């Protein structure tokens, strides 16, 4: 039983991993820094490991989906990120893909359930 639970949790992690980029892009229409984004996602019940998020932000910046700026006006300097123009386009496209995928998945799962109850 235990190993089955482990398998389910590792498969769930894999499912979530695919949605990470979309999740992060969706929260960056305004400037956020690393920890503020962690808190924001936690509040929205979509927690993400800090150790995963920080590198991800940098990778997305490298892929030119995000732009960043250092804010040194406060007591401690912070690096803020937001969507670039390219990032906005990519985000819209990913959103369409996601909706199509989730609709399709929902239909497939429902169909299966109906078959079972027949």
């Amino acid at each position, binding site marked *: 039983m235990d190993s089955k639970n482990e398998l389910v949790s590792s498969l769930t992690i894999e499912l979530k991993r695919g949605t990470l980029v979309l999740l992060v892009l969706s929260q960056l229409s305004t400037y956020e*820094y*690393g*920890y*503020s984004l*962690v808190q924001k996602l936690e509040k929205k019940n979509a927690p993400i*490991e*800090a*150790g*995963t998020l*920080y*590198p*991800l932000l*940098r*990778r997305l910046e490298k892929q030119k989906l995000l732009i960043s700026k250092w804010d040194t006006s406060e007591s*401690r*300097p*912070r*690096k803020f990120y937001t969507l670039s123009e390219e990032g906005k386009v990519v985000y819209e496209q990913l959103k369409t893909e996601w909706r199509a995928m989730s609709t399709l998945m929902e239909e497939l799962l429902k169909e299966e359930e109906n078959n079972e109850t027949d």
Partner: protein
Amino acid sequence: MKLIDRYVYAVTEHFQKESKEDVGKELRANIEDMLPENYSDKDVYQVLEKLGSPRKLANEYNPRSRYLIGPGYYDNYLSVLKLVIGICTIVFVGIAILDWAFEPPVDGYTYGNLLNLFIELISAVFGGAIQGALWVTLVFAILERTTGEVDQVPFSNKKWTPDDLPEFPIDNKKKISRVETVFSMFCTVLFTALICVKPQLIAIYTKDDTGGLNATPFFDVERLQSYMVILFVFLVIQFGIFIWKYITGSWNLPLAIVNTIYNVAISILIIVMLSDQALLNTEFLSKIMQYTDGSAQTISTWMNTGKWVFVAVFVVISIWDSISSIIKSLSR
């Protein structure tokens, strides 16, 4: 504070200079954001524990493959590695035994000398294994960096298509005999090991007055040293071709072309080396003179003829090998 410094250092240690500073600064700020005001060491400890191992984090920052030999070649690497280690061990042990046979210890086979022989054999086994592993790994590391994506055709940068499926069973006309490949690998290793480790074993052996064996090396060992680098380059390329042959098991055009280029290059090298008078040990000549009672003139003409006959045979074999490999690769 100390702990944070150590953590940031551990994460960014192997980053490139530009990203090192920036990532470090950002990571530090993020860690500090996660800490409460007036934090204690214990708070820091917990935050770092949550962030996880620095190696894992560094890997997330820089997710590229960091391996010497990737999954595409791994199985091939293992099987070639075993084969070559076997060959090298045999060759090295053989050379150690030859060395003893031609230069037996002066005071006969005492226990001490036998122990020495035993130690020499053991170190030959390890030496051979290490040399073999080193060269195979080098060749595969080069292959990995020049080709090697799993979805590509081995030894090329072409995307795989069903056309690339090997014939099954392999067409006899195109087949590269494994035995032949292994045998030529063996010869190459033997020859290179002799040239590099014990060139003095390639010699004329004569009995002196007391009945002991006397060896006069063919090569001028010092002069031979200057060819070492180029010989090693040829060894690596030759090994690359062997491995290619061994893995694909049948001739294809790129392989045949590379094989031909190699044959031309090695023929040129052989001609250059044999034209180099300084490479021949002068003692060797005088030794032959002494034993044949010929004049210097006749001996050197004789040596010259011998050299060029050798070159001619070598070149003919190379041409034969090149043409036959190209024909085989084109046959269907």
